[in-house]
């Protein structure tokens, strides 16, 4: 057993027994953090009668095994998964890019009073989205269509004959609206992530670039952006998870069944009157799959994003 200097918990470490106690606690932690996921995985392979009669965390017996629940869940969720990706990927990229630009303009280039803007942006991270929900619905479903209808029919009236209608009920339009909304609300956190990274970039290097004759745009393009690549990984992964996982905005902005996102469809599946837990668990796992995959592959970046580093 290796004992490093500056270790802690003497009582735990000094003897083999205490070291075993430590690992026992850590393993108990694994059981605690994984049992809901484990029972979900086990249950989704069970038949109706099996999940009612066996222990939830036990694997299904040979007669209780079925892929039917998974198939049902997959069929229910598949269009939602596609919609989610279609909406979340562009929103994530736009947020990250704009966040990086904002952070550059507010960190690397320094000017008096920028702290005020920074405060507003950081406060924006913590806004409970309920506070913007009604205006959001108003904007996308009433004000914007009204303005666009008026504008298009006035300017292009000779083509439309004054009958053009903003396609509010079009599934793709709704997804686009949701995507834009997520992109906007993602800017603050992306800015914060990039800002703390840019603060660590040496001022002297930026000054060297200015002396080399680089413009603000060139410094961003040739120096900051290439150096930001690891931070882009962190931001994209964190933000994708956040956007994909959201339910609230989708509930408000998507009312066409065809354009519902994965979380919406899962919520509908769970909220059904008949609780077929094998199907809902399969649904949960299927809906979690994209973020789980991202998390398993890029766990390190996700942890950094979470810690705001």
């Amino acid at each position: 057993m290796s004992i490093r200097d500056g270790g802690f918990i003497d009582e735990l470490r000094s003897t083999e027994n205490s070291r075993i106690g430590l690992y026992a606690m850590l393993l108990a932690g694994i059981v605690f953090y994984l049992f809901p996921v484990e029972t979900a995985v086990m249950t989704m392979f069970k038949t109706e009668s099996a999940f009612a009669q066996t222990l939830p965390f036990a694997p299904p017996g040979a007669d209780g095994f079925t892929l039917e629940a998974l198939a049902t869940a997959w069929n229910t969720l598949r269009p939602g998964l596609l919609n989610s990706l279609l909406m979340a990927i562009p929103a994530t990229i736009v947020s990250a890019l704009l966040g990086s630009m904002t952070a550059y303009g507010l960190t690397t280039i320094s000017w008096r009073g920028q702290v005020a803007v920074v405060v507003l942006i950081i406060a924006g991270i913590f806004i409970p989205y309920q506070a913007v929900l009604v205006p959001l619905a108003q904007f996308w479903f009433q004000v914007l269509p009204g303005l666009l209808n008026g504008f298009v029919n006035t300017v292009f009236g000779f083509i439309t004959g004054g009958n053009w209608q903003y396609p509010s009920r079009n599934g793709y339009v709704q997804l686009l609206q949701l995507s834009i909304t997520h992109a906007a609300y993602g800017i603050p956190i992306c800015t914060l992530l990039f800002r703390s990274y840019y603060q660590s970039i040496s001022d002297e290097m930026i000054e060297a670039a200015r002396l080399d004759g680089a413009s603000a745009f060139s410094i961003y393009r040739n120096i900051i952006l290439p150096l930001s690549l690891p931070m882009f990984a962190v931001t994209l992964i964190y933000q994708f998870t956040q956007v994909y996982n959201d339910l609230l905005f989708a509930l408000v902005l998507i009312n066409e069944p065809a354009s519902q996102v994965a979380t919406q469809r899962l919520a509908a599946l769970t909220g059904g009157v008949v609780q077929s837990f094998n199907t809902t668990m399969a649904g949960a796992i299927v809906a979690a799959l994209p973020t789980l995959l991202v998390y398993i592959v890029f766990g390190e970046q996700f942890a950094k994003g979470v810690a705001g580093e």
Partner: protein
Amino acid sequence: MAQLTLDEVTKTFQDDDGEIVAVDKVSVDIEDGEFLCVVGPSGCGKSTTLRMIAGLEDITRGEIRLDGQIINDQPPARRNVAMVFQSYALYPHMTVRENMAFGLEESTDMPDDEINERVEQACKDMGIFELIDRKPGELSGGQQQRVALGRAIVRDPEVFLMDEPLANLDAKLKAEMRTELQELQQDLDVTTVYVTHDQTEAMTMSDRIAILNDGVLQQCATPLECYHEPNNLFVAGFIGEPSMNFFPMTLEGSTLRGEWFEYELSDETVAAVEGTTDITLGIRPEDIEFVQGNGPNVFDSTVHVVEPRGNENTAHLQFDESMDDQFIATVGGMKQLKAGQRVKVRFPENAIHLFDTESGEAIRNRKLDEIETVESVV
């Protein structure tokens, strides 16, 4: 070919408590091809001055002229200056070649092959040609330092600005680079302003030294002038290692009376200090003589601590056990001294510096005409 002039350059910062003057009316003429060191303790405004020349800080008042052209409001890139930073400030994601080419790409219309040619030539000059396609992370500190210098050279600037470029190197490499830098500057014959807090660097490398304290220029002169004819107490204490010894005295007739000793002045010196009564007597450690027997201006003292340095010994002396501060004398490495030993020391009159205690101004310095030259062998 460039002459750089600082004319009453002033920089003030706005603080919660009001205005802070970082650089106060600094005026210096830097000749074409001259190597000027700006030294001073940290916070004295030396880096701010350099950054104002570079254009990285606005100038509050006064003006900076390059060959007679005012460059106060020129953006950094148009000033035709190149700067070497303490941290080297290399672009970590670019190779040595890209690092050096970046400035030429950004600030000139030079075709790519010409840029490449110049970069490769500069690399050869700096002896880093074999590293040209590596990134800074793969280089040692000394190599990074060369790349930083190369990046400055390749621009062929009118003025080199260096901000403590050797501070991050270890002692041996530092001494090496000092010589190399000096040679390089002479070869290129580019006007250079070099900021350092290390007075040894300033003494050994520069044509002239500008000493700043609290944003005020104390003296701007050759290293030897600064050493032997300091303008004031600050310069006298800052230049030289170990520092000059100071004793506060009062002039009565032709006698300087201090807490520990009385010093008899010659008529000539008395005439020179006429009108000042509060006088600080200064003497450099190497000018203190150890003598046998009594005489004028010979004092008894006790050796407190001896620091052997090989080539010489530094002795910390006390006139009396109750004396809090010690004064320092250096003797040749072959002369042995022991702690506790009673010695007689003489302060030769031609070696003493006298300062007005109140203003700090020098009123009498040691004479430079005593400097001997080593005869050349034909």
